[in-house]
């Protein structure tokens, strides 16, 4: 365990989502596993999430979600940063690009993870474009000259999604998330405004949400059950390659990532070494 605890000492990971809960949903368990083994992980949201509710909104909602993100990050053992762009209005502008370049540089990131450019939400797609646009620029001293460029290009990765065109998600690394699922669920439980209000409302099941804290956790597990199982089911082959058939059979929850063609291009073995096992 002590060896494990240090395995990722010095590794810096930044996940860049569009909203405060994107990174936690897609990769909360991997984030927690990295953090518990010494990596410094930051979960960043480009928007403040101020449109993600059916009743509240604006600054009041943004403040609430920022506090939720902090609580959630504490549970995962990571750092949280929420930029202040408006929810639903993210565009791949030079302004957002510069903020992303600065965020990656100031975190000294070795790994950057973001959505793919063909996810369903425009904010997700543009978050992806902006991160791709930063992938080379983090090295260029004349771009954002107020911060020194990175010496080594980070590895850029994508979160999974289910969209097929122009190309489906194709995982390059998969992580057994089972050991950190409790933490992931509790980190999501900290985001009341989303897990127990907005998402059930948009899914037309608000009246199913329990009031009692313990029942809520059970509801949360049920709500996300298929979603959290899906990577383990769909990418069983990759899971078997990385963990062997015996362990792969027992994996209930997995988180998968695809390598972006921009940025550092590690060999598969090198890539797998960088991710929690």
């Amino acid at each position, binding site marked *: 365990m002590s060896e494990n605890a240090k395995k990722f000492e010095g590794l810096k990971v930044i996940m860049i989502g569009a909203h405060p809960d994107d990174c936690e949903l897609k990769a909360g368990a991997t984030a927690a596993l990295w953090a518990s083994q010494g990596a410094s992980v930051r979960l960043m949201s480009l928007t403040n999430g101020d449109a993600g509710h059916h009743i509240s909104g604006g600054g009041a909602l943004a403040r609430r979600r920022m506090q939720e993100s902090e609580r959630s990050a504490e549970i995962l053992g990571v750092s949280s940063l929420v930029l202040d762009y408006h929810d639903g209005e993210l565009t791949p502008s*030079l302004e957002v*690009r510069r903020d992303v370049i600065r965020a990656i540089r100031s975190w000294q990131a070795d790994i950057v993870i973001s959505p793919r450019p063909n996810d369903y939400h425009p904010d997700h797609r543009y978050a992806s474009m902006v991160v*791709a646009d930063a*992938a080379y*620029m983090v090295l*260029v*001293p004349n*771009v954002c000259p107020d911060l020194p460029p990175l010496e080594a290009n980070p590895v850029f990765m994508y979160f999974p999604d289910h969209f097929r065109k122009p190309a489906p998600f194709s995982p390059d690394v998969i992580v057994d998330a089972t050991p950190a699922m409790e933490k992931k669920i509790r980190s999501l439980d900290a985001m009341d405004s989303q897990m127990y209000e907005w998402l059930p409302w948009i899914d037309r099941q608000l009246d199913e949400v329990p009031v009692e804290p313990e029942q809520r956790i059970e509801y949360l597990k049920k709500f996300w059950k298929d979603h959290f199982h899906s990577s383990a089911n769909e990418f069983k082959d990759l899971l078997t390659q990385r963990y062997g058939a015996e362990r792969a059979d027992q994996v209930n929850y997995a988180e998968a990532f695809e390598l972006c*063609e921009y940025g550092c291009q590690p060999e598969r073995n090198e890539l797998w070494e960088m991710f929690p096992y």
Partner: protein
Amino acid sequence: MRVIMLGAHPDDSEYYAGGTAVKWAASGVDVQIIAISGGDAGHQSEGGGALARRRAEESVRSANVLGVSWRTLDFHDGGVIPSLEVREAVIRAIRDWRADIVISHRPNDYHPDHRYAGMVMQDAAYLVAVPNICPDTPRLEKNPVFMYFLDEFQRPYPFRADVAVDVGDVMKTKYDALHQMDSQMYEWLPWMDGRIDEVPDDDEGRRKWLETYMEPDFLRWTDNHRDALAGRYGDSQAAGAKFSESFELCEYGHQPSRDQLWEMFPR
């Protein structure tokens, strides 16, 4: 015939298509190389207007070696986005040159300026024929053929060589043209690659080193698209070819048949 190449930076068109440009120019085709950005971020210790001026001088020298015309649209390096302003500048440039062929990057190259240059070319591909767009510059009567430079990215789909040009016999001129771009070939690019220590000090040594520095890329381009070369030149010339430049036909704009397309490119 008139050809315009829309590179994102001063050196992109020369690097991807310098050999083809030489051959066209030698056969009487009017070729213009446009740098959408002035390249004012492409250096480890210089920048801004001073660097843009230096790169403009290098590019004009390089264009003289190739026998082509050169100009820049002067947008900032690292700041090319698919805005209406860039689009209109590109529409006017294509119209002013009365281009029959327009060539730019694919929209999935590694550099955001390359990707957005590709998008802007696509955005211009229909509008160059629309009189109410940029009404200050007469529209083109005939939609040009739009083509992409080669790149090696696979997603969402890999580059397809619709036409390949054997440039082995003009490689010396292509290298001579690139050799004019000191700020890039001997300073910025090797610095970025961690190879700045290898660069010789003297002009002759540099010119020699440039070939060893660039050759692996150029050889790979040919190896990866030898089939396209074989279609056009026959198996035996294709098998012996060392250096080629390939281009993909864009789906927007004029769609020539394969034979027509091959006729438009130099042999």
